[in-house]
C-alpha cells in the first residue's frame, strides 16, 4: 500500500502511444465482465471532480437491459481554472475515443457522443478527423460504434450530466430530478454512461498496462495519477500529471511563487485552502489522508498575498449567479443573495453578523439544491468566508 503524500510526477495521459488499434482489438476480444473487473480493481474514479467509481458506473449501465444505450464523453469543461480536457482532446484524442468504444462494447452501446463546450469550437476539425479515422478502423474490426461531436453553446451547467442530456435533446440545459440516474435513464431516456474526457483517457492506460500499474500510483482511496491545471500566481502555469494524494504543502512548494496565501482547489465550486492548512490538506477523494482531503477536477488556482479574497469570492459568485440554470429556488435566489450580501457587508450596509446568516444559507443550498451547482456554491463560499472573514468586512 502506498502511503506517500509526496508530490510525484507521472506521465501517462500525454505519453505518445501509437498502438490504439491494438489496444482496442485486444479489449474487444475480452469479455465485458473482464473489462469491468479490470476497471473496478484499478479503483479509477471519475476525473470530473465528483469521483464516482468508473467501473461501477459501467457495470450499472451494462446490467440494464435495453437495445439502445449511449456512451457520452463529457467535454463541457467549464469550471473556472480547468483546461486539461482541451489539451487531451487535441493531443491524444484516440485515447479518449478508444475508451469510449470500449465502454460501448462493455455496456452494449452503438453510439457515442462527445459533448464539446462551445468555447472549444476550434478543436472540432482536428477532432473530427481523428474520429473519422477511428470509425474507419472500428468498421474494419466489425465494431459497430459511431462517435459524433455535439457542440455546446456556452452554459456551464451543461457539465452537469442530466443537464447535458437535456441540452443534447435540444432543450434548455436544466438538470433533471435524480433518481432516476443516467445508468438507467440518461440521454433520450436510455441507459447512458457519461464520463469525463480524462477518465476515458485513463481507461486507455488501464487497459493497456493493466489495473495494477494504475492502482500502484497514488494512495488509498485515491488511486492513479491525475492532470492538474495550474494557474493564478504561479511561475509555471500549465497542465501537469501528478499522482493523487500529495499534500498541498508539497504542491505549493513546487508551483507556488513563494508568497502563496491560498489555493483554490477544484475551481469555483471547490474549496479555498489558506496557507495555515496547506500541511494538513491532501489532494484526493474521500478517506482520511492527513487532515482534510479534497477531491478535485484538477483545477489549482494559486493566490499570493497581493490578492483580495473578497474579489475572488465576488468573482465566483457572479459566475454562479450567471451560470445557475435558474429553475430551483435555493440556487437561483441563493446565489443572488450571496453576491449582494457580501457586497452589502463590504460596503458596511450590513453588519459582519450577516455573513453568518449567509453561511447558514449556503448550508441550506447544499442540502436542498437540485443539482451539484447549487450544492457546491457552499464550498468556496464557506471556505473563503471562514478563513478570510476579515477581508470580507467593511
Amino acid at each position: 500500500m502506498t502511503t506517500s503524500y509526496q508530490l510525484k510526477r507521472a506521465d501517462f495521459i500525454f505519453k505518445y502511444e501509437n498502438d490504439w488499434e491494438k489496444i482496442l482489438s485486444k479489449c474487444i476480444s475480452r469479455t465485458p465482465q473482464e473489462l469491468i473487473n479490470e476497471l473496478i480493481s484499478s479503483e479509477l474514479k471519475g476525473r470530473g471532480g465528483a469521483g464516482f467509481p468508473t467501473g461501477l458506473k459501467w457495470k450499472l449501465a451494462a446490467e440494464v437491459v435495453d437495445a439502445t444505450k449511449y456512451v457520452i464523453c463529457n467535454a463541457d469543461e467549464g469550471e473556472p481554472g480547468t483546461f486539461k480536457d482541451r489539451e487531451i482532446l487535441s493531443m491524444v484524442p484516440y485515447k479518449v475515443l478508444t475508451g469510449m468504444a470500449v465502454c460501448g462494447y462493455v455496456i452494449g452501446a452503438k453510439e457515442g457522443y462527445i459533448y464539446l463546450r462551445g468555447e472549444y469550437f476550434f478543436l472540432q476539425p482536428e477532432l473530427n478527423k481523428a474520429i473519422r479515422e477511428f470509425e474507419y478502423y472500428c468498421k474494419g474490426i466489425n465494431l459497430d460504434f459511431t462517435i459524433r461531436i455535439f457542440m455546446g453553446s456556452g452554459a456551464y451547467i451543461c457539465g452537469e450530466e442530466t443537464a447535458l442530456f437535456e441540452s443534447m435533446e435540444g432543450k434548455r440545459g436544466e438538470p433533471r430530478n435524480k433518481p432516476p440516474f443516467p445508468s438507467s435513464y440518461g440521454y433520450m431516456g436510455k441507459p447512458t454512461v457519461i464520463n469525463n474526457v480524462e477518465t476515458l483517457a485513463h481507461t486507455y492506460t488501464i487497459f493497456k498496462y493493466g489495473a495494477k500499474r494504475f492502482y500502484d500510483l497514488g494512495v488509498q482511496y485515491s488511486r492513479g495519477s491525475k492532470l492538474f491545471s495550474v494557474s493564478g500566481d504561479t511561475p509555471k502555469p500549465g497542465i501537469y500529471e501528478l499522482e493523487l494524494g500529495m499534500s498541498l504543502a508539497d504542491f505549493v512548494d513546487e508551483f507556488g511563487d513563494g508568497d502563496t496565501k491560498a489555493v483554490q482547489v477544484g475551481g469555483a465550486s471547490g474549496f479555498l485552502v489558506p496557507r495555515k492548512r496547506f500541511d494538513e490538506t491532501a489532494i484526493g477523494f474521500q478517506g482520511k489522508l492527513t487532515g482534510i482531503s479534497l477531491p478535485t477536477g484538477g483545477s489549482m488556482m494559486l493566490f499570493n498575498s497581493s490578492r483580495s479574497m473578497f474579489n475572488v469570492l465576488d468573482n465566483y459568485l457572479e459566475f454562479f449567479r450567471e451560470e445557475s440554470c435558474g429553475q430551483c429556488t435555493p440556487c437561483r435566489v441563493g446565489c443572488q443573495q450571496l453576491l449582494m450580501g457580501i457586497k452589502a457587508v463590504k460596503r458596511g450596509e450590513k453588519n459582519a453578523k450577516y455573513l453568518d446568516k449567509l453561511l447558514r444559507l449556503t448550508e441550506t443550498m447544499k442540502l436542498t439544491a437540485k443539482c451539484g451547482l447549487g450544492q457546491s456554491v457552499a464550498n468556496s463560499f464557506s471556505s473563503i468566508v471562514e478563513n478570510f472573514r476579515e477581508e470580507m468586512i467593511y
Partner: protein
Amino acid sequence: MVKKIKISINGIFVEVEDGTTILDAARKAGVIIPTLCFHKDLCIAGNCRVCVVEVAGQKRLAAACATPCEEEMEIFTNSLNVLHSRKQIIELLLSEHNADCTSCFKNGNCELQKLASDYKILKQDFIRLVPFKNYTIDKYSPSIIKDDSKCIRCQRCVRTCAELQGVNALTVAYKGDLMKITTFFEKPMNDVVCSTCGQCINHCPTGALVERNYIEKVWDAISDKTKHVVVQTAPAVRVGLGEELGLGQGVRVTGKMVAALKRLGFDAVMDTDFTADLTIMEEGTELLMRLKAVLVDHDPAVKLPMATSCSPGWIKYIEHLFPDYLDHLSTCKSPQQMFGALAKTYYAKARNLDPETIVSVSIMPCTAKKFEAARPEMHDSGYRDVDYVLTTRELAIMIKQAGIDFMKLDDMHFDRLMGESTGAAVIFGATGGVMEAALRTVYELVTGRDVPFENLNITPVRGMDGVKEASIKIENPLKEWAFLDGVELKCAVAHGLVNAKKVMDSIISGQANYHFIEFMACPGGCLGGGGQPIPTSPEIRLKRAKAIYAEDEGMPLRKSHQNPEIIKIYKDFLGKPLSEKSHHLLHTQYTARKRY
C-alpha cells in the same frame, strides 16, 4: 400486480406501491408536506424545493414530490434540518417577490401567502431583490395580466400552457438570475399565440398571472342612472360561484346567484343558457345543412367534420395553429355573443329601450370571453355586443364588496324574454354538453323521436376522458331527412387544447372521419374554465360536472327546441334558424393568425 414496499415517515410505517413519490406516501400517512411548484394537473418539476425532506442515510435533502420511495426508506419530514432549510427557501422566495399583498388581486387565495403564514417568516433579513430588478407588468391582453414581480418561477404556468393546453405561449427564458417566465421574444401576451384560456391563472400559485378585471367599469355602469345594465350568466358559473363564497365544491347556487345579481343593481338578470338553446337550434340546423351539402350535393366547399365554436379559447387556438382549417368551424357565435347581439336588438326592441343606453355584461367561467367580446367582428348589433365580461371570481368579489350575505339570499328567477332555458343548455358548462344537447335536438328533428339513450343522458360523451367518441345510427328519419337514413353520425368531444390538438392531428392525417366535433379549450369544459374559482383539480372538476348534470335532470324541459322563449324569438324576431337575420346577428367568421 404492482410491488408493495414498506417505508416509514416520521416513525409511521406505511405500505405503498413501488414508484410512489414520498409526497404521495406522506399524504397517505397523514403527514402534510408543503408544496409550491407541485400541482396535481401537471408533471413534476421539483424546482421550488419547498417540499424537501430528510431521508435517513442521505447527505442531502430530497424533494418529496420528485423522489420515489424505496424499500425501507426512513423519511423525516420535520427534522431540524428540514425546517431550517424550508424556512430559508421560503425566505428566499419572498426576497424576490413583490409582497404588497394588500394591493394584490390574489390576496387571500395565494399559496405563497399561505406558506409564509404557515411558516411564519417574521424577519426578512435577506436583501429585497425586487427593487433591483426591472420587472415588467404585461397589461395589454384584454384577458390576462402578467406581473413578473410576483412570479416565483415555479413554472406551473409554463407546464399548464404546454401540457394541458399545448399552446406554449409561455416559456422559460434566460438562465441564472435573469431566468424568467415569458413569451416569444418577450412580446406582450396579446401579441403571441396565447389562446387567453386563462388556465395559467388557475394554476398560478401567486398573483403573477391574474385576469384583467373590469369590476370598476361594471360598478360605474351600474351607478350610471342613464344606463340600462343587462347581465347574463354562463351555465358553469352557477356551479362554481359557491366555492368563492364559502359554500362547498360542486354546489349549485343558481337562485342565489340571480338574487345577488339583482341586489347588485343590474337592471335585468338573464341567462346565457337561453342563447345556449339558441345555439343548438342554429348549430344543429347548420350541421344538418352541411351533412346535406356533403352527402347529397357533394359540395367541395362545405367541410366536415363540423367543429363547435362556443369556446373562444379554442377559436383563438385554431386561428393561430390550424389557420387552414377554419372552414370546419361552425359559423355560430358563442352563446355569450349571441346574447349580446340580441340584447341590443331583440331585447331593446321588446323593452322599448335605446340600444345605445344598454350596457351588456356577462358573467363567464372564462377569461377568453373577455378577448372574444373585444373582437372587432362582435359589433353586429351596431354596438359592441357585449361590453364587459366578468369571471366567476370577479362576480364573487363584487358580491362581497356589495356586502351581500350570500348564504341568506332567497332563490330568485331569471328575468323573462331571455331568461328561460332547458337542461340541454345547462350542460353546455361541462365537456360533452354541447354535443349532448345538439344530439338531443338534431336526432329529434330528423327522426321525430327522442334520442335513443336512457333518460336522454348520452353517457358516452360525458366524463373526463380527454377525447370521447360516440356514434348514433339514424334510422327511419322523417321524410325530408331521408338522405340520412342509415347514416351513422360520428361525433367526438375533446376538452383541453392538448386534446384538441390530438383530434386536429387525426383529422389532418385523415385517420378520423367524424361528422361533428365538440371542442372546449379548458379541461373539463367551461366548469374548469380559466375564470372559475381557484384551486382547480380533477376532483373539483368532477364535482362541478356532477352538479351540472344534476341541474339538467332537475329541469322540466331538457331539449333546446322545447324552450318556449326560443319558439317565441323565432316567431317574433328571427324567423327560422339560419335565416338572414340569424346570419347577421348570430353568425360570424374567423381570422387566420400568426403561429407564434
